[in-house]
């Protein structure tokens, strides 16, 4: 069996005595996509946050690109060493930085040389239709442009795993369809394993990969 991009085993997580995730298993190869849908409060965002290392689990093991990131619920790799990127529901853009700098800062922080960072930055902004907006601040972007910028920043650093937390939920149906079409296009050129969580089963179907349901603390086809 080839090395998995993401391998999550027997994950348990509870909040205030309520068990959210119970023995959850998930395995994704490079380039594989999965959409996880579920009701509000089912634990979708918690699942992403545990994978990213932004939240501790009660128990379980996680491997990312062959490296142990979590064992027995204990973090072995901090979030910034996991090769995971997240597109947050509220995007998490850096408000004082321009569109260009939002991507450039991320690349420079990964140790990419200045010239190469600038070139990669231009490439990814162009791929996501953000060229011409480089100098704008996030507050001056439309909803769709902000989402594309968050995606550009996440993809620019070439993560092993890309996590999308309801990235197009607040957009109108047409913009959402456009967003997924663009997402499909840019994901084709990466090797990142992708996990998308959404409460909307229709949206889950738009990603173009496996569709799973988070129910009773586990993932079901």
């Amino acid at each position, binding site marked *: 069996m080839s090395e998995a991009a993401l391998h999550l085993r027997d994950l348990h997580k509870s909040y205030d005595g309520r068990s959210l995730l119970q023995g959850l298993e998930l395995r994704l190869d490079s380039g594989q996509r999965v959409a996880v849908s579920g009701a509000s409060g089912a634990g979708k965002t918690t699942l992403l946050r545990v994978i990213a290392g*932004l939240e501790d689990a009660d128990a379980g093991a996680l491997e990312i690109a062959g490296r142990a990131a979590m064992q027995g619920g204990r973090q072995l790799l901090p979030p*910034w060493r996991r090769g995971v990127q997240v597109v947050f529901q509220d*995007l*998490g853009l*850096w*408000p004082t930085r321009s569109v260009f700098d939002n991507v450039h800062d*991320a690349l420079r922080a990964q140790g990419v040389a200045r010239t190469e960072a600038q070139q990669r930055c231009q490439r990814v902004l162009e791929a996501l239709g953000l060229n011409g907006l480089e100098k704008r601040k996030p507050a001056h972007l439309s909803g769709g442009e902000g989402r594309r910028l968050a995606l550009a920043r996440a993809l620019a650093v070439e993560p092993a795993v890309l996590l999308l937390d309801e990235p197009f939920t607040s957009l109108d149906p047409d913009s959402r369809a456009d967003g997924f079409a663009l997402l499909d296009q840019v994901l084709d050129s990466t090797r990142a394993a992708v996990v998308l969580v959404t409460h909307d089963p229709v949206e889950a179907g738009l990603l173009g990969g496996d569709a799973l349901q988070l129910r009773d603390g586990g993932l079901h086809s």
Partner: protein
Amino acid sequence: MKHDLLRSPRPWRLLALLCALLLAATPLLPMLLSIFDFRDGWQLGDPRLRQLFLRTLWMSAASAVVAVALGLPLALLAQRTRVLGAPLLLLLMPLPLFLPPLLIAQAWNGLTGMDGQMASWLTLGLCYAPLPALLAARALSRQQASAHEAALLCGGPGLALREMLRVCVPAAAFGGGLAFLFASTDFAVPDYFASIGDKFAVYPAEIFNRWRDQDYLAGARAAGPLVLLGAGVLYGSLVLRDRWSAPLAGSGRNPAALPLGRAAAPLAILAWSLTALLLLLPVGRILYETGMAGAAAEGSWVSRSGAAFGDALARGREDLGRSLRTGVLAGGVALLLAPFLADALARARGRRARLMQLALALPLLAPAVGTGLGAISVSNRALFGDLYQSTALVVMVMAGRFLPIAVFLLAERFQRVPRNQWAAAELAGLSYPLRVWRVLIGPHRAAWWLAGGLVVVFVVRELDLAILLPDANSSAAVRYFNALHFARDNFVAAFGLLMALILFLPMMLYVAWTSLRSPRQP
């Protein structure tokens, strides 16, 4: 018509504005008019005055640098890390601001023996360091949680820290601007350090000397350049703050603490050292002085300290009572007026908001000695009868000066109230005062009381004004000032600490109230 008057915000805001103008702007008039008086080459035509003004500028700038250098790291460590005792550090952070600057000056002189110019700007920097610290901490608490997490994922703690600095540096710089303004208008601290060591003078002393010469109007007019400086620096700071900061609405989650790794222990030491510099060492020193040899120098330190506190209570009770009474009356005025002005301020945007902030803040930023002389020159006329000698004048001037504190605090809270709640109350036909009471003050009742409490605190600790206004001469601050200049004994220390305890009280009550009432976050 009657219903329109009750429902429309305009008449109420106008009434509040007129009251505020009467209280706050009247004493400022002689200062404001002098700005446009170009006879004799304006106020700074005299080379001696120019030199005093320049010295005040650089000393205040040095105080501001000290305030930011100490306040910014403290805010970062207390607000966004899990250093040992971080919640307690946050709780202690505003307290130095409530202490009379003269008390901190006394403590640092006792601790280090320093005097002269350096002691003055250093002490004022320590006094006002909570301003950049509090503003930076507030900015950090509002950082979008996901923006912080995105920085952690992309570049680890280094990038996350850079992002945090981008969020809080504009706020800290604004706090530094305020520290500069308060330091530039302080008279008592430079006067104290000049009286016990190397002689020097600052510009507010020049204003004060006109009072000694009984030339009140000239004194108020001499304060004009400081008012102009204050207005310019404040407006510039507001522009820079608005330009640098670009807030984005978040999900409401609190941003996570920055992981410190092995640096946790040394950073905890740094955070507590900063708090010691700002609060624990000065208060500790004053406490120590309560048991030093003095008038009642017998027995152990504990018995001497106990005797000093008993003495302070016996001799100072009436003055403390008078200060508190004045403070409570001024606080009451602020509680009534501030909500209407705060509502107007909370709705303003851009340049209009900055101009409103500037106009509202002016009474607080004008030198207190200038305000006092302005109040005397306006009220000490046959037309106003006994007003000049009365408690009413003190309450009016103090309420006018410290009203901006209540207005700014409430405006910040009112901005958080969802506009649809206001619209729903409007549609339900509630009168404007009822809407303010139920929709705006309702969810922020503790902050409303705190706003009044802060006015009480600042009235009680105000010294420069109290020296000048006849009815305020028998106040706690003036008794402390006179006692300190007359003899530095254990009575002075005990009396200063008693004042400090009273000044800390409103903040403690606020913290107790909010922690009892706020639901626990998961």
